[in-house]
């Protein structure tokens, strides 16, 4: 695997850990401890695990050799970025229309919903970007053969 693949895999793992841990924590707090959803939602704090994904560029040093990134790598990265942004755009649309559709046009919502839209967009963008990199490289052997 080259550096881009390793960083992408690292991100996918840590974002998945963060999302799963949050979902489990919220479910446990809500169903097992019978907390109201407004308190159970504090399980979202475990999303912080996803932050470890940002350490990827530090942990995986630059590839050795004169040519570390060729046109194919750049093309893959560019396509992955487009995929990430595209799916994030879709997630943004869903998160924006959800309260409007469920509550109706006359309702009001807590202002804390807005940073959740941003968080959902950001996480989706990074996750899909990383998955698209791994898919395009083909989950194959070393040296991208």
């Amino acid at each position, binding site marked *: 695997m080259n550096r881009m693949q390793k960083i992408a895999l690292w991100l996918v793992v840590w974002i998945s850990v963060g999302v799963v841990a949050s979902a489990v924590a919220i479910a446990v707090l809500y169903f097992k401890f019978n907390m109201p959803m407004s308190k159970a939602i504090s399980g979202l704090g475990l999303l912080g695990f996803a932050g470890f994904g940002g350490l990827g560029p530090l942990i995986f040093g630059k590839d050795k050799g004169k040519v570390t990134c060729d046109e194919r790598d750049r093309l893959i990265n560019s396509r992955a*970025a487009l995929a990430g*942004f595209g799916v994030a*755009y879709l997630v943004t649309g869903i998160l924006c229309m959800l*309260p*409007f559709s469920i509550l109706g046009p006359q309702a009001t*919502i807590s202002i804390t*919903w807005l940073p959740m839209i941003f968080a959902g967009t950001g996480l989706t963008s990074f996750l899909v970007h990383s998955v698209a990199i791994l898919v395009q490289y083909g989950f194959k052997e070393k040296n991208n053969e």
Partner: protein
Amino acid sequence: MVITFSLGLFLGITLVVMRHFDVGVPNIAFIFPVFLAGSGGIISITCFKKDKGAVTSDERDKMIEKNANLAGFGAVYFYIILMSLLPIAILGEKASIPVTWCPSLLIGAGFCQVFAQSIAILIQYGWGGKDGQR
């Protein structure tokens, strides 16, 4: 697109400022900046026909289009960050907002993307010249 969007944005800001200073602006007037901005799309489809010739798009055009798409999406990402965090900074975390703020955010994101994409295309082509030549 850039011209109609810029005019729509300018008109929208003017109406907001007029409303702020209690100049009688009816609510229906705010629909005009949206129509003006949206007219760019209609004009593009109806007035600018497909290029004639065997080769209408080469690798350079495709590369420019891809870069412009990335620029558009990047601008939307920045816009979402701004529109998500600005209300909390201004109103505080205990405030409530009307639910219609969210779909407005989405519509604004759409306009932002098209605007940024159009500007990126113009910059990459060098703002004119025949046949895309600089």
